[in-house]
């Protein structure tokens, strides 16, 4: 079995204003472990929904979502929380840092779910912040950081527990060009140097070039998977 991401016949619908919207329509998709994928498509194509399903933030109506060899439909709420804590790091467009905590506290937050001591958690969080170049900002609150710094802090938080999967939803959407480039470079390094499987939702073709594979979605269906050169993969 592929220890990456396997989706088989995945369907997801939402009911809005009495109307049923099909967001993912019997999607079949397989993504290898250790690769960097960009997920592209027009608005409403189901990119974020797919990311939420893979990250166990949401559940499908039908079909199988198997991530890292785990069939997520078989896990209850508590088990999904544990699985998420151990296997997934999220990077969101809006950064999603907790405003009342410092950068260091935000990064060490997921480590509270591990058996590490307080000292070890601090050391590891400080190291993660050092990796993303924020050593000198670790005691700053999110509002005292620039957008790029906040996103790098969020990346540090995503990797601090050493998860196999990094799921990024428009991570450069709110950033200027230079900051966006720094974030993309970080994601590339996480993939290349640490072997993380990265699934990144983006509208930006330039950002998508950082990925090894580009998954195209439209109206909840898979249009195709290509490599950077545009060849079908």
């Amino acid at each position, binding site marked *: 079995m592929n220890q990456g991401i396997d989706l088989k016949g995945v369907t997801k619908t939402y009911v809005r204003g009495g109307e049923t919207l099909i967001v993912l329509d019997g999607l079949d998709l397989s993504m290898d472990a250790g690769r960097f994928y960009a997920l592209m498509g027009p608005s409403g194509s189901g990119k974020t929904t797919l990311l939420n399903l893979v990250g166990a933030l949401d559940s499908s109506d039908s079909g199988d979502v198997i991530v890292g060899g785990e069939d997520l439909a078989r896990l209850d709420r508590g088990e999904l*929380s544990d699985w998420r804590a151990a296997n997934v790091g999220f990077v969101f467009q809006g950064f999603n840092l907790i405003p*009342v*905590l410092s950068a260091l506290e935000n990064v060490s937050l997921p480590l509270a779910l591990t058996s590490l001591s307080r000292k070890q958690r601090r050391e590891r969080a400080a190291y993660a912040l050092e990796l993303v170049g924020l050593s000198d900002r670790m005691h700053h609150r999110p509002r005292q950081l620039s957008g790029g710094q906040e996103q790098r802090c969020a990346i540090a938080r995503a990797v601090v527990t050493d998860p196999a999967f990094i799921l990024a939803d428009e991570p450069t959407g709110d950033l200027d060009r230079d900051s966006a480039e720094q974030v993309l470079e970080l994601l590339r390094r996480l993939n290349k140097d640490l072997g993380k499987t990265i699934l990144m939702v983006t509208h930006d073709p330039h950002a998508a070039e950082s990925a090894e594979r580009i998954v195209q979605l439209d109206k909840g269906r898979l249009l195709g998977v290509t490599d950077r050169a545009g060849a079908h993969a």
Partner: protein
Amino acid sequence: MELSRLVWRNLARRKLRTSLTVASLVVAFFLLCTLRSLVTTLQAGADSASASRLIVQSAVSLFVDLPQSYQTKIAGVEGVERMSKWQWFGGYYQETENRFAQFAVDPEETLAIYPEMQIVEGSAEAFYANRRGILIGEGLVDQYGWKLGQRVPILGELFPHPDGPEAAWEFEVAAIYRPTQRNFDSKMMLFHWDYLEESVKASSGEAPGVGTYVLKLAQGVDPTAVMARVDALFENGPQRVQATSESEFQKQFVTMFGNVPFFVSTIGGGVLIAILLAVVNTMLMAGREQTHDIGILKALGFTDGDVVQVLAQQSLLICVLGGVIGLSLAKLAEPGIAEAVGSVFGGYHVEQSTMLFGAALAVGLGVFAGFAPAWRAARLQTVDALSSKE
């Protein structure tokens, strides 16, 4: 632990709101503790009343006097060992604010009936010998600085001085007592019945009536039987009497203006409900504001139980903090309140059971107030919480 830090930081997120909520809890717990202490003080007073003492008053009202001629008849009732006349004098010292309990009594009988009055300065003999002598409690010494031998002018309102209402009755401190029981009034002034009678007779030509007769029963006598005998004695007039136990009399005296324990408990209950609603409202607002953060925690892998803990702890901390400060203030204010309400609630005291009751209430309130937001947070879908704009 990061979650504990998050709890504290969330409380500090809206400093003014948190401070106001804690302040309202402080006021509520102070009031609750004080009001409950008034009730327990009343109860303790009644409980500590002697079972061997009876009070005889008019069956019509405490404000209707009894004839002095009853004394001989009551003294002859089987089981009555000693008895004293008591009359409320109703005067004040220098200023109208300086009111305290003054009674005209039969000195020797009274000291024999009330062993709770331990004379610590002067002597019983000096009190008996001096017709204008008074026996005062240490509470009055503390309040007015009176000393042994000092002349004390009291302006009588119920019993104006024979020389006119502007003239003061002259008394002299002959002895000072210390109550041996906490609930015994330490601010009484007792003086000679004969002095009152002579003066009243001199001005009006009539002997004063008796407010109450206090009876000391012989050992082993059934109080109920004596009460029935005394009541029966005057069943056909000229004025009917009501004999009650001292405990019952004290309860009746305090509840003359209504059911005090019920009244006080109702106010306390009202305060509690009002504060409960305020705290629930605060916690619901806090919970809504933290919806997005809850989504983040859940996305990071924290369970529903973890987020329940974060919100419940905030509620608990606010309530416990408010409770601890409020209860501590009530305890600190104990001497001041005892001083202020001593004439009605003699021996006012904040009991340990009241402190424990308050502490349990603070915890219960915290759990209850945190329940609604915590329940909501637990049920939130991670995706919905993350997309929340609150």
